[in-house]
């Protein structure tokens, strides 16, 4: 039931793959309300991550995530670099010294990652940012686990909450990030960062679920 190192690695690789696949899509979403580089940025970062994590000797999950964080921070730039860097840095910090990662550990780590993003970026829910996908995902995960659901079911619920949160950004008027310069004109478009965050939650479900 615990998340193994190879599952954590798989999570990172799946996220890299998803970002690569949807690079153009993410970029198009960003072109509509930002500067048209979100897919390019994330893909540049995750492509830099892959050889870095390959080169790691099988170790603990925390140092894996720390490597991802430092690589994203030093290769992505833009808003998403520090923010996704923060996600993985918080995951690493929360999972530090855990010999094995239990579902509850993951749930707490994810909550602290979302908290890190919010404290760095000062985004509140409905500001039309990645927070709108990450926060409901983290809440769904912990709610499900608290209600006694299986890890698989909780991961699935997190993914679906992220997706719903992502879609719910469409009507919102952006209040943070580059899209906020558009004011009312940002409404009607899906937030690119929320979209990549949904891909992140999807990758977590695919990598960590047992029954799939």
């Amino acid at each position, binding site marked *: 039931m615990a998340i193994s190192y190879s599952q954590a690695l798989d999570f990172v690789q799946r996220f890299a793959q998803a970002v690569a696949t949807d690079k153009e899509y993410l*970029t198009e979403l960003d*072109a509509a*309300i*930002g*500067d*048209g*580089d979100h897919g*390019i*940025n994330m893909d*540049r970062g995750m492509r830099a991550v892959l050889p870095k994590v390959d080169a790691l000797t099988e170790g603990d999950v925390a140092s894996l995530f720390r490597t991802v964080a430092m690589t994203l*921070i*030093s*290769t*992505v*730039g*833009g*808003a*998403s*670099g*520090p*923010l996704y860097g923060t996600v993985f840095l918080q995951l690493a910090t929360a999972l530090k010294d855990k010999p094995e990662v239990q579902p509850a550990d993951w749930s707490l780590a994810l909550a602290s990652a979302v908290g890190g993003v919010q404290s*760095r*970026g000062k985004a509140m829910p409905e500001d039309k940012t990645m927070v709108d996908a990450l926060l409901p995902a983290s809440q769904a995960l912990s709610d499900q686990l608290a209600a006694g659901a299986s890890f698989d079911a909780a991961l699935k619920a997190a993914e679906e909450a992220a997706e719903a949160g992502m879609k719910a950004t469409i009507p919102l008027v*952006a*209040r*943070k*990030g*580059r899209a*906020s*310069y*558009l*004011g009312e*004109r940002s409404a009607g478009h899906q937030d690119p960062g929320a979209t990549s965050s949904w891909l992140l939650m999807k990758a977590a479900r695919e990598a960590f679920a047992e029954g799939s």
Partner: protein
Amino acid sequence: MKKLINDPENVVREELEGIAAAHSDRLKVSLEPYYIMRADAPVKGKVAIVSGGGSGHEPMHGGFVGKGMLDAACPGEVFTSPTPDQILAATQAVSGGAGVLHIVKNYTGDILNFQMAADLAKEDGIEVEAVVTNDDVAVQDSLYTAGRRGVGVTVLTEKICGAAAEAGRSLAEVAELCRKVNGDGRSMGMALTSCTVPAAGKPTFELGEDEMEIGIGIHGEPGRERRKLAPADEIVEVLATAIVDDLPFKSGDRVLAFVNGLGGTPLVELYIAYRALDRFLKGKGIAIERNLIGPYMTSLEMAGFSITLLRLDDELVRYWDAPVNTPGLRWGA
């Protein structure tokens, strides 16, 4: 996409190699991580000034490194803020013991990355002050949003603060001056065409043959409104009115007028715009005392321009006139 490049992935690195080859007499270029610094940095006892941002706005910022302006510039990928490690390395490289000023344009990415770098530099014992420029009146301001974008005023702060640092002013004083310039300057731009980020391969946005975008951002962010094309005089009036009303600039004010080309707009058009601006301001009793006309803060090959007005006083004029010796801006040296 038609560009004079080899590979979209290598645009920034090859540009930096070109700059290194061209200006080795005055600049040093680091490729790992990317930054450009004065060849004579660190200048002992002088406040150092570091700026940076996405590439594609050349000559800003790398072209403004040199005596009398920036000590270092950190170029990110095209239209993407630089990363903290670049900013940290540049800050360390140019720190001359009198502190380092970060001039940061107000974009979430720039703010976050410069913040991370400043935190790390401070841990390293370097005194850092960051000033954020946010002069774009196109953006509806609000406490609850990311706020206004930093645009044309950034170039002016870099020149003026560079002169003040050269004159031996302290970090607190230079930072204060920077905030004053930002506070007394306002900008707005417009685009006739989009631009194409090399890695994206297609135009950031589409504009009809008879449309223009008023209030465009320097990364091709859509602006205030899309309108039917209009004569230059009318466009200048729209931008200048928004700028003048915002500060507001008043009759009797002395200003620096900066008519900036976004890349694809020929100089002849910028002078036609300057003519209109000069007439507009004269009509309001506002006197242009200094000017800067040309492509200084660009958006790749975008056709369009921006106007920046800065209220002047004797101190600002003195610092503006002080010698500057950079590839992108040079006089008195």
